[in-house]
């Protein structure tokens, strides 16, 4: 999609200036000071800030205590054993309070009281659920509450006999009053009742005109895992693409690969958008293909023809292609394990294919294969072709797969931009390229400097000396 020049441009252009460290390194200064102070004073580490247990939680915190008690009940079967002593955790309190010049343990008791005084009269109390005993409360329902009263009682966490709302009209007015509380908890409670007592058809129809209730109902079905009802609902609402995706999502929870494949196959007929439909088909085709490759490879492994490998199942497409580049690189295009076949089937872009094959063959140290990637067969014979990515990236990929210098330099030499080429050649010790470039540039000074970088008594050093002594070259400096 992008031309090579864009690519080169990206790597060579200058960057926006922001967020750049200045020349002096102040973090380092701070580090030096810290180390100095440590030398100055014999420090008692126990007094450092806050104490931390080895689990990483601060001593005295809740998560620390949970772990402590669990450990102690494990060690002493009966569990009556010592709970962590609070004296221990007191000593662990932070020195930060000292830092602030206040006493340990936060606020003085007096302040507590004044806050509490304020709180007792504050309306906050109104929202706190009243204590109740459900053992008692679930029995006695005699009162006859209106929809509004029922909703309010539900909101306050009190039990309400919803069974008495029998007619459709009553049920709907109960639902509407629940909706007007905005309390999802109440709305859901009423929906559960409606779901149990209304036909799906009626329920879905009524929900369609009540968006808030509908959202809570969908949420409820999601939470309770009632996939089937949910799919019916979305179908009834005409939200078919959403239903299709929801159904497709199911595949994530299928662990058996053959079943998963069959499931994906069954998804193909779902009403996805055109675009998604193509992706689902690719997904199915990929898994099907992986199962085929896996079956033949396992056979080959047992017969000793192939070394044991990681499973190719459920790998992404590119990883599958890489697998095939490792294990089946030379298979003919007609073979389902052949990288070329994979490329064809899934219409992998040239760039993706090239990068994957390059990395895989480089890792296998199959240098002729690497070289062949850059050739194209024309009727006149082999020609060198331009790769679909910059030579700098090619060098980068090869280098990451620890290609030797002899291989690297062939590709470094192909980098068009002279400056970039020379810096890459220096980075990867492609001495010949550097030396030849300085020779061509007639840059004596650089050549002399570079002499210090090549090995003493090496062939490169001799070559430099020869060039420097060559009277025919008219150096520019």
């Amino acid at each position, binding site marked *: 999609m*992008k031309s090579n020049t864009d*690519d080169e441009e990206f790597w060579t252009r200058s*960057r*926006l200036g922001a967020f750049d*460290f*200045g020349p002096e390194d*102040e*973090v380092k*200064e*701070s*580090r030096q*000071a*810290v180390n100095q*102070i*440590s030398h*100055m*004073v014999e420090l008692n*580490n126990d007094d*450092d*800030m806050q104490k*931390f247990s*080895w689990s*990483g939680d*601060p001593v*005295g915190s809740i998560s620390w*205590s*949970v772990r402590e*008690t669990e450990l102690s*009940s494990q060690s002493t079967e*009966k*569990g009556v054993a010592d*709970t962590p002593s*609070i004296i221990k*955790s007191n000593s662990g*309190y*932070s*020195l930060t*309070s000292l830092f*602030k010049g206040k006493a340990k343990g*936060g606020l003085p008791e007096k302040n507590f009281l004044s*806050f509490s005084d304020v*709180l007792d009269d*504050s*309306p906050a109390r109104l929202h706190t659920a009243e204590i109740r005993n*459900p*053992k008692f409360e679930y029995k006695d329902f005699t009162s006859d509450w209106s929809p509004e009263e029922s909703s309010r009682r539900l909101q306050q*966490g009190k039990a309400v006999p919803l069974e008495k709302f029998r007619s459709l009209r009553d049920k709907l007015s109960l639902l509407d009053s629940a909706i007007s509380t*905005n*309390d*999802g*908890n109440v709305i*859901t*409670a009423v929906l*559960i009742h409606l779901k149990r007592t209304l036909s799906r058809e009626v329920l879905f129809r009524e929900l369609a005109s009540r968006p*808030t209730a509908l959202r809570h109902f969908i949420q409820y079905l999601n939470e*309770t895992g009632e996939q089937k009802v949910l799919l019916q609902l979305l179908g009834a609402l005409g939200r078919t693409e959403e239903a299709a995706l929801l159904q497709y999502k199911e595949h994530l929870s299928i662990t058996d690969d053959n079943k998963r494949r069959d499931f994906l196959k069954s998804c193909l007929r779902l009403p996805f958008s055109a675009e998604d439909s193509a*992706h689902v088909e*690719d997904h199915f085709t990929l898994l099907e293909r992986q199962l085929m490759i896996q079956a033949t490879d396992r056979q080959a492994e047992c017969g000793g023809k192939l070394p044991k490998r990681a499973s190719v199942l459920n790998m*992404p497409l*590119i990883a599958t292609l890489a697998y095939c580049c490792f294990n089946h690189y030379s298979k003919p295009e007609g073979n389902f394990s052949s990288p070329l076949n994979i490329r064809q089937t899934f219409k992998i872009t040239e760039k993706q294919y090239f990068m994957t094959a390059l990395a895989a063959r480089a890792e296998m140290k199959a240098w002729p294969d690497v070289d062949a990637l850059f050739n194209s067969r024309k009727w006149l014979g082999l020609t060198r072709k331009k790769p679909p990515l910059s030579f700098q990236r090619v060098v980068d990929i090869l280098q990451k797969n620890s290609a030797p210098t002899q291989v690297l330099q062939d590709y470094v030499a192909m980098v068009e931009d002279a400056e970039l080429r020379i810096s890459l050649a220096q980075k990867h010790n492609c001495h010949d390229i550097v030396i030849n470039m300085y020779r061509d540039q007639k840059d004596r000074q650089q050549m002399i400097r570079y002499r210090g970088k090549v090995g003493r008594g090496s062939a490169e050093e001799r070559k430099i000396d020869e060039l420097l002594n060559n009277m025919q070259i008219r150096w520019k400096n």
Partner: protein
Amino acid sequence: MAAHLSSGRVNLNILREAARKELRVFLDKCAGSKAIVWDEYLTGPFGLIAQYSLLKEHEVEKMFTLKSGRVPPADVKNVIFFVRPRLELMDIIVDNVFSEDKLHSSRDFHILFVPRRSLLCEQRLKEQGVLGSFVNIEEYILDLIPCDSDLLSMEYESAFRECYLENDQTSLYHTAKGLINLQALYGTIPQIYGKGECARHVANMMLRMKREFAGSQNQILPVFDSLLLLDRNVDLLTPLATQLTYEGLIDEIYGITNGYVKLPPEKFAEKKQGEGSKDLLTERKKLQLNSAEELYAEIRDKNFNAVGAALSKKAKIISAAFEERHNAKTVVEIKQFVSQLPHMQAARSSLANHTSIAELIKEITTSEAFFDNLTVEQEFMTGIDTDKVNTYIEDRIAQKEKLTKILRLMCMQSVCNNGLKQKVLDYYKREIFQAYGYEHMLTLNNLEKMGLFKPQTSSRNNYPTIRKTLKLWMEDANEQNPNDISYVYSGYAPLSIRLTQLLARPGWRSIEEVLKMLPGPHFEERQQLPGGLHKKRHQGENRTTLVFFLGGVTYAEIAALRFLSQMEDGGMEYVIATTKLINGTSWIGSLMDHPASKAP
């Protein structure tokens, strides 16, 4: 332990004390000795409210983690389950109760739902026939947890996903409830502003609830002058950008949860003499981060490039203080020096810790990968090449970069281009599916629904207009001595905070056009105060605004608000509340549909 909570403009310790009181009241209802069985997720948020000592004072003798099978033996009268209202947790409790009864029939069971009870959960217990086994079923309303002297969080991880993706407004209901409770403690907030659908909804619910309790007049003098409710989806761009403040980077790289960070131990091993601690070094070092630590409060909101200077300055001061010992000659002088020692050692230890953290972060921020990533981000935010396939992204995909990182960049490109051309979008999707797996179709669908990664619907890209009008990109951001909020992203001024800033001065009327380009309505409401509660403002006294981010806020945005609070001529101080503290990675992660990310 919580003294720092009362050091801010608004004493948030009142809220913490209220929460502690509720907890005591509940514990005392279950008379006698107790064991608490914890939903492990809750120990973090509870840690911000109480320590073990408080529980122990109320006869909590044992604490366990909730898991299947029987509750470990403990000779106590009560077993209390502290749980979130989730069905899968109910099933574990059912299992606990069944395994228990046969062995110890004398123990009483209780459930404390946090933050709200759920009839759905009770229904489940009833169906399984164990509802009657519980003496108390209560809720513990832990809506807004004070994390620092100016910061409240609901620690409601899934709020953004629920609100914007699943259209589930439960978290909004809790938000409204939390705000009502807050008003009960701090007085009615006279002005409410908001931007976004969810903001509108929360405001409506608040006003409604207020009307329903009209009988009980709130007689507390208002502490807050105004409340600003902001939808996260009004500003999708900011969380995607890499935060460049000290605290922001700690969160980006190591993740801060409930005020704690876990760090690789190597840098902290300066002296563990004689403990033969080779294997102990593999444990991550856990550190608490809040304003109780003087040095941290000083540096956390700085751009990371200014942290080195601050640390080395501090180092000089502390060194000088230790050098003082040479001058202490008389007994009195020596005594005084010694009395200072604990303070000085704490300061030194704090300095050592933050020097170590700064070193760890610097290794990353000076890496080529970090720089390349940042360069691309900044290009997108300034509007360079947002309409074509980006080579860097393509390249990172080829190198199997973590998917969340790729998605962050792609979403940023899409947001900065107001959607991508179909051709570009399709190309990215193909690359993702082929390199990471077709199942990510689900995730990309989610991102599209959220408007994070979507096709261009109109040919007009209004991002440049928004950027220019709100001055979202400042060419000369000063990282060392900032004069504008854009320092928190080294050039990019977070949109959400610009909106906040402009609301204070000169008011939103000046940016009507841009507000219309951003999703959701903007509004203003007044709440009547009972007579006599109107604040008499002293000349030059700052006003206080509570900014509530629905769907999450980043540390860099918080830093920007603190910067505005400290501006001399700002006239406004901010307290921040949110459903959850987020960063781009945790945020995108919450929108992914994958078995690995579905953990409870």
